């Protein structure tokens, strides 16, 4: 137990000194193993982790979904989604913000990254909301929180990484994200309604569309529908694995981008290099986390913690609630994904030991990461919007995001209380 605690302390110390998290975990794991089992064992184990993580077929799912997300972000599909959603709800108070949330959810169904979703939607939805005199607090809040739907609604890079670390079926995790995604959209829309109820000036109504225009707009999203049906439908129906689905989806996105004339050779190379960089960054964290995990698993911590938690076994749900509370608090000051990666080797065996479903826990973890992306002061989506929308400063972003953060926390509560929302669809899979 002491060894593991020292290991965690070392990681945090290094990370707070600004050593990249991936390397902080690698150093602590490597040194910890070396001190406990001897250096030759640590050498062998570390080089094995690096080699096998880099040389692993199933993991090609990560670059392929990253590539697919970057391609659809350029293909202009976000505009059609926004137009379609807007056609139905735009004339209501706060309707454009609701349309932003719904369109983000739609975009999340073909894009597995929250940053790409927020960045893409900010280009499409923000000018429109500005034109209708929406307040920046509501506009930016809807885009930032809507963007996080990208990692809940499948495909999702975060679920892929969770699946790999915990050896949970990625296809099941993806399918499990669908219904919670709809719950999330509903909660965020309610947050918009609440904001405009308190302050009707925040989101004045826009023009009403006729039914003819609505039908036309809804026909515009066939591309998104097709890609989603192909990839997620294919995985759900057991036609192909998550990795194969990612390859099919990336190629489909490439063909769409090509057909719409948004791809030049230079743009394509940019997208490919950017996707490779994101992949390398994700893998360095993955490898660091795995090196650290192999050290933690050698300490007595997982077993100790399991024993400690067993005393809660009459009400195991308390353990989950406490864990989520810890994540929420830590997430205010730190990168949530990093904390999750760091704590999964310790928390995951506890969760499984208490008899909870790993798929359900995965959905909770994604929700936590989503909240971390938008909760001030350290929220990556807020920073992204801050750099993309120069007239919206961080103070406005912080002020506008709170209703959406609370909506997400409420959703987390709903998902904890009703595991069936996460588990019903994957339970039907073959």
């Amino acid at each position, binding site marked *: 137990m002491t060894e593991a605690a020292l290991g965690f302390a070392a990681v945090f110390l290094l990370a*707070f000194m600004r050593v990249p998290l991936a*390397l902080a975990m690698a150093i602590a794991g490597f040194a910890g193993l070396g001190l406990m089992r001897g250096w030759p064992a640590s050498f062998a184990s570390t080089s094995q982790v690096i080699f096998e993580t880099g040389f692993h*077929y199933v993991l090609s799912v990560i670059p392929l979904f*990253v*590539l697919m997300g970057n391609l659809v972000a350029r293909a202009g599909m976000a505009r059609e989604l926004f137009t379609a959603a807007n056609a139905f709800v735009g004339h209501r108070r706060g309707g454009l913000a609701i349309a932003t949330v719904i369109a983000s959810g739609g975009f999340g169904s073909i894009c597995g990254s929250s*940053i790409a979703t927020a960045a893409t939607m900010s280009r499409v939805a923000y000018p429109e909301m500005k034109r209708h005199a929406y307040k920046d607090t509501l506009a930016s809040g809807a885009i930032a929180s809507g963007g996080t739907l990208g990692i809940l609604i499948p495909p999702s890079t975060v679920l892929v990484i969770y699946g790999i670390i915990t050896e949970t079926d990625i296809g099941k995790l993806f399918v499990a994200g669908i219904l919670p995604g709809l719950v999330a959209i509903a909660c965020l829309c309610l947050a918009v309604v609440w904001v405009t109820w308190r302050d009707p000036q925040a989101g004045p109504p826009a023009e009403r569309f006729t039914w003819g225009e609505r039908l036309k707009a809804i026909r515009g999203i066939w591309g998104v529908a097709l890609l989603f049906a192909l990839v997620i439908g294919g995985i759900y129906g057991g036609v192909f694995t998550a990795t194969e689905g990612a390859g099919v989806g990336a190629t489909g996105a490439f063909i769409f981008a090509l057909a719409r004339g948004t791809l030049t050779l230079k743009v394509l190379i940019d997208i490919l*290099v950017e996707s490779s960089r994101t992949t390398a*960054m994700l893998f360095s964290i993955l490898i660091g986390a795995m090196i650290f995990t192999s050290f933690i698993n050698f300490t007595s911590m997982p077993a100790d913690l399991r024993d400690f938690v067993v005393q809660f076994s009459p009400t195991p749900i308390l353990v989950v609630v406490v864990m989520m509370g810890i994540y929420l608090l830590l997430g205010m000051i730190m990168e949530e994904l990093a904390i999750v990666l760091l704590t999964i080797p310790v928390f995951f065996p506890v969760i499984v030991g208490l008899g909870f479903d790993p798929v359900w826990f995965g959905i909770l973890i994604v929700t936590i990461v989503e909240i971390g992306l938008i909760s001030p002061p350290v929220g990556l989506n807020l920073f992204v919007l801050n750099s993309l929308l120069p007239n919206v400063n961080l103070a406005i972003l912080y002020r506008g995001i709170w209703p959406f953060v609370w909506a997400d926390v409420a959703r987390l509560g709903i998902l904890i209380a009703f595991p069936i929302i996460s588990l019903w669809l994957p339970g039907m899979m073959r």
Partner: protein
Amino acid sequence: MLKHLEKILQWSAGLTAAAALFGIMWLTLFDVTGRKFLNNSIPGSLEITEILMVVVIFGALPLVSWRGEHVVFDTLDPYVPAWLKTLQARLVHLVCAGTLGMMAYLLSLRARRFAEYGDVTIHLQLSLAPVAWLMAALLLTTALVHLLFAAVAPVPGHGATGETP
């Protein structure tokens, strides 16, 4: 000078990684369609994908380091005085260089062992040693990038947070 180096990295490692990623995409597609519709997959496509993955991940790593895109905790940044920041950046780069150099060394040991035992992939009988050598070389390149930044002025854009999905 630095600009030139970045261009060289971009056009060598970056472009190779990009091409490998594009390759994985098509390979996966042809493999799936071949298996589902023609009952005939590409032999050894799994192993080719694995090798291309190594190129994508480790090829792009020097660029990630160059652009300071690793995930870092910058929570304490507002409290670090300006004079200390340069020193801190240099020290961190030195730590990174050391760690990545160590990883490169570990992979070179593994490569030598692969060569000694003649380890090959199951299907295509491709030798594993060059793969491990490639990892070692690219990790060393990344270590050198950090060493360079430890020696010269702090990286432009070093203050940026890394990207997460």
